[in-house]
Every structure is written in structure tokens, then in C-alpha cells.
């Protein structure tokens, strides 16, 4: 196969990579984005979904705090369809550091972060789930953001402007010649096919994997990994984002999104990226800790847990990882002897646009393209395809339209056939594979209480009938889908979710015998 040619090869399909693809595409620079799995397979698909007001960083990292404030304000104006502007509370309970509480409003003002002090009573009226032991409360401008929608809209616009996306495509090698990456060797992990891309510039936007990719180019980036675990509740617990008002610690934040809330996180140093998963100990610690701020969290039903990894660039191995700057690292590897190679890693979802802008500026100047960044003023388009991950959206629309023709394939989250059809069409447009797992990623299927027990087989049958899967792959995909769902349920299996898991196993093992490979 002939090598593909492009101006810029972007490695990594998270918020940063997709944001960069859009930024460059708007400047008229044509890109290919390669992603080893699917969109948002890394931290962008495993974070808290908090659009930071900046309040969390006022004491530890005022630079980040200001960046967050500016970007959050921009995004609320430019990408409102990805954001639920909930507002946020910062609250302290008995026993929390009172000096920190006393300093907080002043620190906010220093970073130009709007803050309003509330009485404890006002706060508890706004959010009745708050503990009776509240001692202080402030209102800030935090919001929740749907990272999946965000990345989808970014990449879709880039594609419409002529850039290309390759999912399930992994960088395996760089061919270097005279201080440049001449060619990048890629592997399609689904088919096993290898191919080559020749790009003028290569950008490493692989988040926690940035060190691995840099290594392939003979460049060393010292990165430490900090894992954070999060829990998803069955119901939405609060209207607003609720932050614990104290120096950053575990289980400080509850972020609502659609019909659910997300609780977290932890910060656990890990050595390898092979197995990123939340543990039972972390889950228990999160629940116990957060219950001090919001007592109902002790009894709430959790439907799953997940974990993501923060790359900590250039930090030493001592001290608390949270005290390391959450700022980003933009590295021009010309300094390391590889002229056309750039790395962007770290940072936050909140600042993804700014990170993309800075990276595009650097890459643009290397390419000799001087077009200015437009993502600061140009709204992010709204398309249909990116919207179906929003918790509670499908039921809202389905109930509003009440189309008797449109049967529900997923009953917990009320995802109808028409949504699945639409997702299939958009996957085809992106030249991807429309199997059960890809549809799960792009919708709420499998994300409700049943965690795939019923919708898994139903969507499998449906996809078969729509000719979307090769017949001998059906069961394989179902097993894979259930394995993925199980990873998230496994740490929260007690009380009601344990009951659900018993039904899951009764059906898929007891009845279908999915665990048995050889069948009579």
C-alpha cells in the first residue's frame, strides 16, 4: 500500500487531539488523526466532566486557576450544547481546615474568579442533600461538560473540512532520517493491516501515553501516572456541582450530568498503563469520604465505577501528586533533535481548546502557516451524531415525540432504534465499525441500571438484522461488551447493583452459556 501523505499527523483521539484537528482544519491545515482505540479511549473518556471555575486551584496553582476561568467562560459561549451550566458550590464541613475556608474568597478574587459567600442555610436550601454539619459555603461558576460530545463535534468539523480520522489505528514505529520523522508506521488493530503515513509534522497528543510515543521517536519525557477513580450514581443527586472546600483531596467533587451524578476522585500513583481500573478499596474510600459532605451518598445506588490516568509531566516522585501543577506541557522536540515532532500532554479537559490553540500555533509556525486561531471566536458546531451520550437526552426526546414506530432497544436509558440507526450512519461516515461496542460508546446503551443485561442481546439481534455485523462476530462482540460493562460494575456490586448482576449472570451464563466456548 502506498504511504498516505498529510501535512500533520495527530496521534491520540482525546479532547486534545480532536481539538487540535479542528483548530488546524479551520486554519486550512489538513490532518490525519490516528487513535489506537476509539474516540476518547483515554482520560477524555474517563474524567469527571467538570468544567472548572478555577476555584479548586486558587491556592495550589493560581496559573491553572486563571486558565480555567478564562477557558470555561469561552466554552460556555462557544459550545453551550456540550455544557450544562449548573453553577457550583464549594462547601466545608465540621473538621475541615478553617484557615483554608477563611482564605478562599480572597484567593478567588486574586485570580479574578467570581465568588459569592452563602450562609449555610442558603446552601442547604439550594442543595438539600448537603450535610447538617456544613460550616461554610460559596457559590462559583462551575459547570458540567460532556467530554464525548465535545470530542465528537471537534473531530466531525475537522472531517468536514477535509481531515481524516483512523480509529483502531496504533502508532508502532517511526522511521527517522536526518533529524526528522520521515514516516510513521501504523497498525490497524482490528484487521492486523500495517500502513504508513508521511507527514510534514507529527503531533503526539496521547495524554498519559505521551512518554511511550516519544520513546518511539528516541525522545525521553519523564512522566508519572496518577490514577483517579470515579463513581456513577443511578440518580442525579444534586442540581449543582458540589466541591469540598479544602486543599485537594479524595472524593471532593460531585458533578451532575443529565440524569446521573459522578462522584470522585482518588489520586493513586501507578507504574503502568496496562490495567487502569478502579479498585473496591478506592470505591469504599470514596463513598465513606464523600458521605461526610453529602450523607445520602452512603445509601445511594451506584451503577458503575471507572478510572482515568493523569499524566504528570516532569514531576519528581516525592510529595502529593495533587500538588503537582495541573498545567499542560507543550514540548518542541526540535530541541531533542527531532525537528518535526511536538508533544502536547497534561492539562485539563477545561483547557483543551487553549492547549490545542498553543499547539497549533507552534505546528503552524513550523509549517510556515501563519493563519491565526479561530476557535476563540468561532462556535463549535452542533451535529446530531455527538449528542447521544448525554444521560437523559434520549428519553426526553423519545417521550416528546412518542413515535410508536420507534421501538426502544434499551429500556433503562430509553434509547430507541432511530438513535441506533443514526449512530450507525455516523460511524459509517467516519469509516468506522458499527458494532455493539462502538454503539455503546456513542450512546447510553449499556449505561443504565441493567448494564447490558437486556440491551446487549437486543442490540446484538438488531445489528445482525440490519447487516451491521458479520455473523460469527456477534457473540464475540457481546462477550466483549459485557466484559467492558463488568469492569465498571465489579467494584460497586453490593445491594441493588449486586441483585442486577445476579440477573445478568443468570441470563448470560445460566441461560445463554456465554462462558462456554465449545457447544454441542
Amino acid at each position, binding site marked *: 500500500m502506498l504511504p498516505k501523505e498529510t501535512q500533520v499527523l495527530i496521534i491520540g483521539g482525546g479532547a486534545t487531539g480532536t481539538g487540535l484537528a479542528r483548530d488546524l482544519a479551520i486554519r486550512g491545515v489538513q490532518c490525519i488523526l490516528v487513535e489506537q482505540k476509539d474516540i476518547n479511549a483515554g482520560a477524555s473518556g474517563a474524567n469527571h466532566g467538570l468544567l472548572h471555575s478555577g476555584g479548586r486551584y486558587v491556592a495550589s496553582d493560581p496559573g491553572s486557576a486563571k486558565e480555567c476561568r478564562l477557558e470555561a467562560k469561552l466554552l460556555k459561549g462557544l459550545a453551550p450544547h456540550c455544557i450544562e451550566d449548573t453553577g457550583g458550590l464549594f462547601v466545608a464541613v465540621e473538621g475541615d481546615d478553617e484557615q483554608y475556608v477563611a482564605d478562599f474568597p480572597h484567593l478567588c478574587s486574586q485570580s479574578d474568579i467570581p465568588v459569592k459567600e452563602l450562609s449555610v442555610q442558603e446552601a442547604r436550601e439550594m442543595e438539600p442533600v448537603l450535610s447538617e454539619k456544613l460550616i461554610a459555603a460559596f457559590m462559583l461558576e462551575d459547570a458540567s461538560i460532556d467530554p464525548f460530545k465535545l470530542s465528537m463535534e471537534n473531530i466531525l468539523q475537522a472531517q468536514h473540512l477535509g481531515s481524516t480520522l483512523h480509529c483502531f489505528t496504533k502508532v508502532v514505529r517511526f522511521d527517522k532520517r536526518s533529524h526528522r520523522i520521515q514516516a510513521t508506521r501504523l497498525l490497524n488493530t482490528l484487521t492486523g493491516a500495517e500502513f504508513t503515513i508521511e507527514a510534514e509534522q507529527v503531533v503526539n497528543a496521547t495524554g498519559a501515553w505521551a512518554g511511550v510515543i516519544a520513546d518511539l521517536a528516541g525522545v525521553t519525557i519523564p512522566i508519572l501516572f496518577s490514577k483517579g477513580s470515579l463513581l456513577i450514581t443511578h440518580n442525579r443527586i444534586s442540581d449543582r456541582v458540589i466541591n469540598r472546600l479544602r486543599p485537594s483531596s479524595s472524593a471532593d467533587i460531585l458533578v451532575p450530568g443529565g440524569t446521573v451524578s459522578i462522584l470522585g476522585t482518588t489520586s493513586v500513583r501507578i507504574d503502568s498503563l496496562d490495567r487502569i481500573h478502579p479498585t473496591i478499596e478506592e470505591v469504599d474510600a470514596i463513598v465513606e469520604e464523600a458521605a461526610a459532605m453529602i450523607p445520602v451518598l452512603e445509601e445511594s445506588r451506584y451503577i458503575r465505577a471507572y478510572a482515568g490516568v493523569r499524566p504528570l509531566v516532569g514531576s519528581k516522585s516525592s510529595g502529593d501528586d495533587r500538588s503537582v501543577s495541573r498545567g499542560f506541557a507543550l514540548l518542541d522536540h526540535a530541541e531533542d533533535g527531532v525537528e518535526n515532532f511536538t508533544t502536547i500532554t497534561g492539562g485539563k479537559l477545561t483547557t483543551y481548546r487553549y492547549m490545542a490553540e498553543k499547539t497549533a500555533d507552534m505546528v503552524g509556525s513550523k509549517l510556515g502557516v501563519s493563519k491565526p486561531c479561530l476557535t476563540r471566536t468561532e462556535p463549535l458546531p452542533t451535529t446530531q451524531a455527538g449528542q447521544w451520550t448525554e444521560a437523559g437526552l434520549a428519553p426526553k426526546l423519545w417521550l416528546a415525540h412518542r413515535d410508536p414506530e420507534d421501538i426502544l432497544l434499551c429500556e433503562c436509558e430509553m434509547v430507541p432504534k432511530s438513535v441506533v440507526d443514526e449512530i450507525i450512519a455516523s460511524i459509517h461516515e467516519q469509516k468506522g465499525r458499527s458494532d455493539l461496542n462502538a454503539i455503546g460508546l456513542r450512546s447510553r446503551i449499556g449505561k443504565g441500571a441493567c448494564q447490558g443485561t437486556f440491551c446487549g442481546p437486543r442490540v446484538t439481534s438488531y445489528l445482525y438484522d440490519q447487516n451491521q455485523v458479520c455473523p460469527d462476530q456477534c457473540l464475540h462482540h457481546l462477550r466483549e461488551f459485557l466484559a467492558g460493562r463488568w*469492569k465498571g460494575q*465489579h467494584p460497586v456490586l453490593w445491594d441493588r447493583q449486586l441483585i442486577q448482576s445476579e440477573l445478568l449472570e443468570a441470563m448470560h451464563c445460566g441461560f445463554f452459556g456465554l462462558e462456554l466456548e465449545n457447544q454441542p
Partner: protein
Amino acid sequence: MPESESITYDLAIIGTGMAGMAAGLFAANRGLSIAQIGGTKEIIFASGLFDLMGVHPAETGHLWQDPWAAIDALVRDLPSHPYARMKKEDIQAAFDEILSSFQEADFNYCRHRNRNANLLTPMGTTKTTYCVPKSMWNGVEALEEKSSCLLIDIRGLKGFSGGLIKDAGKDRWPDLSHHRIVFPGTEHLTEVYAEHLANALILSQNREKLAQVVRPLVKNVRAVGMPAILGLYRPDEVIADLERMIGTAIFEIPTMPPSVSGLRLKEAFERQLRSKGVRYFSRKKVLETNSGIDDDFELGIGGTAVERSVKSKGVILASGRFLGGGLHADRSHIRETVFDLYVRQPEKRTKWHHENFLHPGGHPINCAGLETDDEFRPLGENSRPVFDRLFAVGSILAHQDWKRQKCGAGLAIATAYAAVNAFVRR
């Protein structure tokens, strides 16, 4: 004040799943007076197939075609398994008695006495089981012979794709073909429900219309398979009728639970229990227990608050596991919900499940449950029976993993039989 009956029943049976219902039948057949109490959570998810014993050791996924030999091997390797407390003749007798009770209720089962039966599931896998509703038996025989069959599925019936079943099973059973029909009278609908279709087929004119749609599709096949919608409660009649009109053997393929075949099972049980005079408190829970004079029991039952009390000489606890409500787990412990009996369990939650859902060994939590003596009387931590006339049966028992070993119904029926006989002996 809670209402109280003056009579003291011989037995109170807690639970209306497979094990509770079977215990009710056995007890009624022995002339005992019975109060049966329970919700209907678990049995509505039943497939209607009765597994006796299929897989052992679970780790290797070894599937046995001879269930009795499988039980021998199981009991040898896992001497604490509930089957190890019973004689094979008694298990056999338990099945004989249940199946003949069902026959009285016009709900017929087929089996190869000494061999398991295999049949297709809606995911195209083959399920190995022991007793199969008669309405599905032609499918078992056709699969054995690998004879040519036509699978018919129905437009709008979710989770049942004849094409998927055909293709997923094509290595095992090559001679399958598939056709999708519109169920007569549902031309205007995009979604149809198994229960409604089954209900429609009670009327003979609807059967006739269905036969007219199917008949032209049937060419050179030994049998026709359809989703389990062929009549709500008397599938055998519906099938005989359709077979006559279509001119070929017909069989049902189970559908995803909750299914019509599960409903038929529940209905057959209830019909039998009622006709045998069992006092049936459906959708009630036991909320309070008292064991008073002479070791009689007094149970406070109701929906959410105690509504009445029931007295009995003995109790059979057939309350199931987590789904049935017999066990409950918080973040660190598993409890038995009615008597707070000792539950054998892994020492902490990190040991309950594997990280891999389909882990071949099965999840350790599945073997948690009640310890009993040879008469199925629950034991306390001191290894002594907690009450003289309290028995525990079915899936609440420890040392078994019915989902992986494929022994759920068998265990329910066999242990119910053993417990009722033990009570009668006492």
C-alpha cells in the same frame, strides 16, 4: 393490629421461586396444610427449562451429556455441594413427582431420562438442560439429528433474530434456514410483545391466519422453529393445531426472559398449588419471625408493614439469593434476610467477584449461602441446626454455583423434595 389466623399450618414455605413452588407441591402431595408466602421476582425470569446438572468442573467448562454421571463426579470433587446430601434415586423421584404434577396441570415436559437435552437459545448458543417443555422438544430432536429446519422470526419482536440464531449456530447445525414474517394482525405495529402474540393464538382463527402465512414457506424441512409464543398457557394444543394445518412438526425456541415459557411455569405451579388447597399469600414478604412454644413458628407477613401473622409447625426457607431477596449484601457483608441465619461467605468484598465477568471458575460469591445438615436444616456458626424444624432449599444454599454448573432447577426440586420428606419424618 395485624390479623391473625387461629390455625397452625403444618408448614410455612417462604418463597415462590422454583424451590418454594416445588416444596409447596411436594408438601401438598403429602397431605400437609401449607401457607406459601412470597413475591414472584425470580420465577418470572425462568426460562421454563429444567437443568439437572451440566458443567463440571466449572473451570474447564466440561459439559456432560449424562447428568447422573456428572452428579457422581461433582459429589466426588465437591463433597459439600447440596447434591452430595441426597441419593440419586431421590433426585430422580423428585423429578418424577414434579413432572407428573405438571402433567395433571396439562403442562407437559419431555426428557431423555438418562441423558441431557440440547436446544438453541435466542443468542444462537446451544443450551444443555434436562427437562424441556414439550412445546420445544421437536427442536431438541431436530438438533440431535441435525435435520433441516426452518426458523421463523417475527417482525417487531425484540431480541429474537432467526437469522442470528441460524448463523451463530451454523457450524453445529448447518441445515437451518430462516424467514421473517409479519404476525397476522400486527401489520400496523413495529413492536410486538411475546405475551400479546401468545394470547392472540388462544383464538383458533388467529392460528389459522398464522398457518396461512407459514404454510407457503415450508418446503422440504423436517420441522419449523418459532419463538415461544405459541399459546399462553396451553402451547401443546396450539402446536398440535398448527402442525395439522401446516403439515410439519413445529417447535418453540425459548425467548429472552421474562418470557412466555416462564409465565407458563409460574401459572402451572400456581394452578396446582391452589387446586391442592395451599394457602397462597402472593406478593407478600415475611417481615418478622418468632419461634415460640413447642418450637412452632409465628411469621409476620405483609407488603411493607406486618399485615397478619401465620403460625406453623415447620418452615421451609426458599427465599432465593439476592434477586429473590433471601440474601442481602451491604458493602462488606452478606446477610440472610428472614431469620438472620449464618451465611457462609468470602471474608471480604474484594473476594466476591472476579474482574473478568466470564471467569471460567465462576465468582466466589455464588458459592456463598446457608450451610445445612443432611436434612437441609440451616446450621449456625456452631455447626448445629438453628431450629429443629426449619429447612432451607434452592439457590440460597452454599457450595453451589447453579449458573455455571447448570443445576438450578434440579437443585431447587431435589432439595425441596428432601426437605419436605425430612419434615414429614420429624
